[in-house]
């Protein structure tokens, strides 16, 4: 009785995502699959769940081989998966999402909603999940959405449950609750695979840890004997610094001031609802918060990409509330956008074209109405060398580059001038450890040269490590201010949930 992956290999057009990987989990066991971004964890699990077809290797569940890539077959064989990006239809109710694929019927094809509701309530009560079956999924918080995913899995009688980066969207407190649920599942005899790149969590929850690197399985350890440092080295392949190396900040004049800002999101809800903050020259201010508390809209509004309904934004004393993105860019503001593939880059453009994406209209890249591609190519070549972007040439599409190198293209473009203010949103999301270290160092360097830095990240560890001051954003407001040297993750986590946690609350 076990779930086994034997010798799995999966090739994509440009990479080998899994290279002869084997893994097994028994009922009543929690196995952590640890590896950094791009190590091939998600691909492996998608193969297990029948979303991808492996090029080689076999998936065996309780002695039966899964032959075809088909989630239906995987579900029937007793595998359930809670995906990193939730597989929930936002405009459906909780109950509709849960029963999708195994709808209770009354009569010909007519859905029996009462039974559906009852199913949800039963499972929800049994595991203390407290979920309302009639709520619309898009209206409930991510933590609750995750519980809906768990209900979906349980209702399908899964014996093996895969969690793909389940804690990425949770606060420290929610993580605790989540681990409680996982332990209960284990008690119930479920086999659990827990995929993560977070060492501490793997050490805390797992019975066994398997480490994946560059698509290969590089080791298996027992969490009772393994140390953080050992695991980190195993993951990355070399010793890594687990902290950011920086001097204390020497803040000077105010560069960015946001005053009582109100911003609507695309659904016309008040995503930012009276936020007030200041960032001084020579300091890094980190914004922590659960995703969806207005961070995205705050940054977009500061950068002139989203209109505000009320309040003001000023940069270096100049009111920029109604400035266009270009006007703000020209005030020596650098912006590393949240979604590099959507906003930061034009993926089908070459590295060079992306390097000049927001400065193409001025000399030396432009001569009046005509572009000077030679000048652009030269500049691009210089930046690629200077910022350690790994690419064979500068005239290949930027989509050929790895995530880390794509991010370096953005950093190079944005940092290669005198900047007064840096706004960096999720600067290291989906980026390998080497690039993370590099990007962090560049941000600190900018601070030391006197720039004001506003850092937004959903990784609490990153915010705590990099910032000189931490602000917590909750429901569109700044809900607390912390000193990262003295505050604990738990305190900040409480504030992220909206409870009174900050010692010195700002502008109440």
């Amino acid at each position, binding site marked *: 009785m076990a779930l086994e992956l034997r010798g799995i290999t999966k090739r994509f057009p440009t*990479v080998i995502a899994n290279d002869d990987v084997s893994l097994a989990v028994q009922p009543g066991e929690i196995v952590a699959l640890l590896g950094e971004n791009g190590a091939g964890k998600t691909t492996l699990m998608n193969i297990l769940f029948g979303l991808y077809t492996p090029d080689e290797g076999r998936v065996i569940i309780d002695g039966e081989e899964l032959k075809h890539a088909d989630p239906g077959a995987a579900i029937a064989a007793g595998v359930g998966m809670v995906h990193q990006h939730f597989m929930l239809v936002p405009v459906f109710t909780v109950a509709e999402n849960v029963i999708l694929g195994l709808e209770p019927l009354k009569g010909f094809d007519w859905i029996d909603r009462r039974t559906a509701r009852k199913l949800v309530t039963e499972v929800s009560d049994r595991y203390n999940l407290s979920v309302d079956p009639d709520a619309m999924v898009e209206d409930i918080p991510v933590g609750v959405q995750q519980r809906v995913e768990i209900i979906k899995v349980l209702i399908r009688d899964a014996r093996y449950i895969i969690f793909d980066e389940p804690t990425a969207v949770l606060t420290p407190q929610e993580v605790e609750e989540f681990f409680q649920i996982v332990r209960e599942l284990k008690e119930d005899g479920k086999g659990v695979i827990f995929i993560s790149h977070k060492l501490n969590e793997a050490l805390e929850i797992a019975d066994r840890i398997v480490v994946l690197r560059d698509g290969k399985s590089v080791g298996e350890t027992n969490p009772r004997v393994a140390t953080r440092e050992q695991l980190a080295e195993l993951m990355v392949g070399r010793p890594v610094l687990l902290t950011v190396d920086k001097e204390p900040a020497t803040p000077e004049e105010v560069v960015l001031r946001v005053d009582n800002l109100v911003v609507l999101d695309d659904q016309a809800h008040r995503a930012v609802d009276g936020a007030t903050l200041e960032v001084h020259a020579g300091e890094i201010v980190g914004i922590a918060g659960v995703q969806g508390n207005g961070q995205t809209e705050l940054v977009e509004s500061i950068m002139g990409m989203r209109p505000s309904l009320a309040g003001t934004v000023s940069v270096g004393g100049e009111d920029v509330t109604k400035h266009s993105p270009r006007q703000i860019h020209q005030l020596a503001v650098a912006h590393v956008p949240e979604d590099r593939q959507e906003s930061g880059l*034009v993926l089908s453009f070459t590295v060079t074209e992306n390097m000049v994406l927001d400065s193409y209209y001025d000399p030396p890249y432009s001569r009046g109405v005509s572009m000077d591609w030679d000048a652009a190519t030269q500049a691009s070549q210089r930046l690629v060398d200077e910022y350690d972007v790994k690419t064979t040439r500068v005239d290949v599409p930027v989509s050929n580059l*790895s995530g880390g190198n794509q991010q370096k293209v953005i950093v190079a473009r944005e940092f290669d001038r005198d900047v007064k203010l840096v706004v960096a949103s999720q600067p290291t999301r989906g980026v390998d450890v080497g690039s993370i270290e590099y990007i962090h160092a560049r941000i600190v360097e900018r601070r030391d040269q006197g720039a004001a830095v506003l850092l937004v990240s959903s990784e609490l560890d990153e915010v705590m490590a990099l910032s000189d001051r931490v602000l917590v954003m909750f429901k569109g407001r700044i809900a607390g201010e912390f000193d990262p040297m003295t505050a604990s993750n738990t305190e900040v986590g409480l504030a992220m949930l909206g409870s009174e946690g900050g010692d010195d609350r700002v502008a109440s």
Partner: protein
Amino acid sequence: MTELPPDNQPDDAMADVPEQPSSEGRKMMRRMTGVDESWRQALVVPALSILLALIVGAVIIMVTDVDAWRLMREDPVAALGEMLEGVWVAYRALFLGAFGSVRAISETLFTATPLILAGLAVAVGFQTGLFNIGARGQMFMGGLAAVWVGLHVELPAVLHVSLAILAAIVVGGIWGGITGLLKARTGAHEVITTIMLNFVAAFFVLWALKTPAFQEEGSNLPQSAPLPESVRLPAIFGEQYRVNIGLLIAIAAVFFVYWLMYRSTLGFEFRATGFSPTASVYAGMNVSFLLTAVMFVSGALAGVAGSTMTQGLPPYTVTSNFAGTIGFDAIALALLGRSHPFGVLWAGLLFGALIAGGRSMQAAAGVSVDLVIVMQALIIVFIAAPELVRTIFRLKKAKAEPAQLTKGWGG
């Protein structure tokens, strides 16, 4: 736009894949078309697509041969022979009508002129993520403006021709720009607005040609008075051949569009907006302006196409259907030319041959020129689904290329 959906893309490729060695020719190709493959590969699919379209066309000619079917019951062999003969006669007429004589070649070039211009109009849209089905309407409005200038302004020849074309550029551009502006301001999808504007333009022309501003005095035919000599596009190879300086204008337009899209600042913005509107907002570009501007350029090109069909079409009395099916042919042509100006030029010449030949096919073999529409549709299918062509001809499979040119209704 070959990219995996983000979810399927391994978040972080572990190592950059080594590039295959690249020849100068390939580099040139990539630079000019954004297509990373050798010339030969780039030509295989289009060539086979045309071949397939001809084969299917032959089948259609046979199946719709009513007389042969009547014979079928008595003498199937003779009937089949008659069908095959029908195909032979039709295709022979098509080929001769396209290349068989100096006149035929002149007809091919003459027919290609507005096709190239309208094809450029569609291609410019494609490069910016816009699907301009409105070349027909833009041709109507631009062409009508040229006619108005022709009838109501008196100028020496060179100036008169130029002013009429300028009027076509401006009015065609505005008609296209309306679509861009509507899309920018309200998100109205350009496919629907351009099609609707085609109908509006067609009715407008129908009405205008019945007004005294355009009609010949004393006539009540729905057509314009004959255009004066001074506004007619001069012939290149003498009066007996229809090909005129419109062809040179079209070729000039090809180079202009190449410069605009790949060498100018505005073209950089156009392409950035087309591939990623979000990134261009981030980069400080004015997406609303760019959408309107690119549709203006597109409409202007179509407008010039319209003017070549009025100022350049003997007997220079303009009727209400001077745009013909060019607006639709242009879509197939832009796809065949992979939205690249030089590709459009060759595709335009090819389609010019096909249509000019199709006309003599209709005259000589009684096969309606509508067959050319069917063949164009098939060419689009095969170009857009290269895998289909490869399957039919059992070619080696190239890497997956889900080409999504257009976008949904919004979001």
